[in-house]
């Protein structure tokens, strides 16, 4: 697209800042993620990870700075416009349609891009991929936490985004469920870029990727998993606080 040899990043945050009254949740963050990349975002509670996602998806307007998606400035876009450009999000608190069945949930998402029989086929494919076939006609509100997380993941995947943001996808999951989620991410990353916020160190090692560490709204370090996880500063702010 751009004339230079440096590939254009998929998404790029420039000098991004978000203030809530007196609280600065995100301060001058520069971050870019390439097409197809898997990035982990870690940091203690309140570091600003969820707020960062909210800015990328148009839920809040950045106080300063800009967000470029494939070179287009998307600050101030409506959330549904951003979704249509190709950014999907699984939020920290699951957002699903509790009063509808699993199949109906997926149908809503599938019919964004499909019509008629193709919608049904897309739903069937997703039910199979997420192994939700046996509960397809249950109301989502009645399902266990882990299952609801996967359904939300299904809603995101069916819109076929170029970038998926996952905010603590394994939170509250059992060991087995966590392993399965990590495997799913392995499959998903073959078709799109991901930014994953997670606390669970084991989980992060499982999906092993480049890591960005947030601390009090700023980027502390960025690098490959091994280097970052053994970095003393990271241990101090992150692991130290977690244990407390």
């Amino acid at each position: 697209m751009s004339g230079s040899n440096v590939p254009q990043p998929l998404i790029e945050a420039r000098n991004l800042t978000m203030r809530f009254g007196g609280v600065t949740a995100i301060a001058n963050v520069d971050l870019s993620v390439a097409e197809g990349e898997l990035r982990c975002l870690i940091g203690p509670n309140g570091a600003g990870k969820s707020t960062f996602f909210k800015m990328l998806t148009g839920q809040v307007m950045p106080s300063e700075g800009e967000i470029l998606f494939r070179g287009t400035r998307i600050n101030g876009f409506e959330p549904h416009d951003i979704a249509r450009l190709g950014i999907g999000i699984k939020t920290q608190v699951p957002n699903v349609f509790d009063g509808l069945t699993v199949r109906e949930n997926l149908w809503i998402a599938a019919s964004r891009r499909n019509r008629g029989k193709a919608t049904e086929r897309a739903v069937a494919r997703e039910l199979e991929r997420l192994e939700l076939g046996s509960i397809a006609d249950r109301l989502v509100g009645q399902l266990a936490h882990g299952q609801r997380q996967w359904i939300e993941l299904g809603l995101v995947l069916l819109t076929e985004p170029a970038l998926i943001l996952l905010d603590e996808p394994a939170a509250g999951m059992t060991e087995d469920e966590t392993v399965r989620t990590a495997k799913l991410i392995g499959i998903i990353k073959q078709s799109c870029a991901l930014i994953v916020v997670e606390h669970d160190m084991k989980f992060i090692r499982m999906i092993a990727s480049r890591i960005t560490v947030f601390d009090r709204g700023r980027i502390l370090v960025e690098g490959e998993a091994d280097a970052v996880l053994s970095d003393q500063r990271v241990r101090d702010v992150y692991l130290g606080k977690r244990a407390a």
Partner: protein
Amino acid sequence: MKIAGIRLDLIVPGVCGLALLFGLPIFLDLFSLLQVTLYAIMAILALSLAFIWGYGGILCLGHSAFFGLGAYAYAIAVINIGESTAPFLIAILVPTLAAAAVGYFMFYGRISDVYVGVMTLTLALILFNVVNSTSGAQYHIGKAPIGGYNGLPNVPGLNVPFDPDNSLDPGDMYYLCMGLLIVVYFGLRWLLTTRFGRVAVAIRENEKRVEFIGYDSRLHKLATFTIGGGLAGLAGCLFVNWGAYVSPTTFSMMQSAQVIIWVLVGGVGTLFGPMIGAVALSWLTVEVGSQQLIDANLLFGAILLVFVLLVPRGIMPVLIDRVWGRISLPRRPVFTAPPVAAREGKR
């Protein structure tokens, strides 16, 4: 099983509707038929709110605004024009446009659900006060006086489209209102199976997720609200024709409250229930009105209280679980989920 369930879902109301449409005129005298015509009109009004509130999740506290606009638009237009074809369409168009305009500000302004309720209530109050206080001869639209608190008596009735000499008699009015009720009911049923309808319901469930998927929730809510406003207007237009009279009470708080009670009693999130609620409570209003012992408002207050406390889901969801649940398990989204055990059997 699901196919059988869906069919029963359509067949039962379909057969009931047609049986009533063609059967009642045989068995009922003219007075009772007139009464049933009124119930059918109120059922259309109930459906309009059942759609935007029960399915769209938009609580309209001032639904009488659109009912009254339909009524007055018809009355004023027909007095000016004479022939009723255009007035009938105007009566639907005016409340539709009003709902679209108000809806645009509410939904594109992203005001919260509570304020949507307050704004619609305010709209109805304003309209009531404006119409109520325009009783002088100086207030008129074309040939039609607005009439203030006296309303407009002797409003000419509907005629066969484009044939002013051929006006509808009470028997024709019955077929028209009952027929329109059936059309509106099945029309909404169909609408709810389309992508638009399903997204509207999804917005009720979780507006954020709908936007993350990439649908413009504002546009969908606006469309839902506008359709509901138009249908309420249709009911208003039929109501004027039924009584040949319109008064500001069509805009009143009591009118808005009644529709809400019909939907609540029948079941928020169903279409059939609110129709039953409208018919049952309208019938009760007539019965209570003919005696002096119990105050009607008090009775409605008591009924509302009983339902909110004891049957919060309304009649229809309970009926479906208890009776139909055994046979077919027709599933429609409701606020409170049916018993797990009943659903397990389906798989």
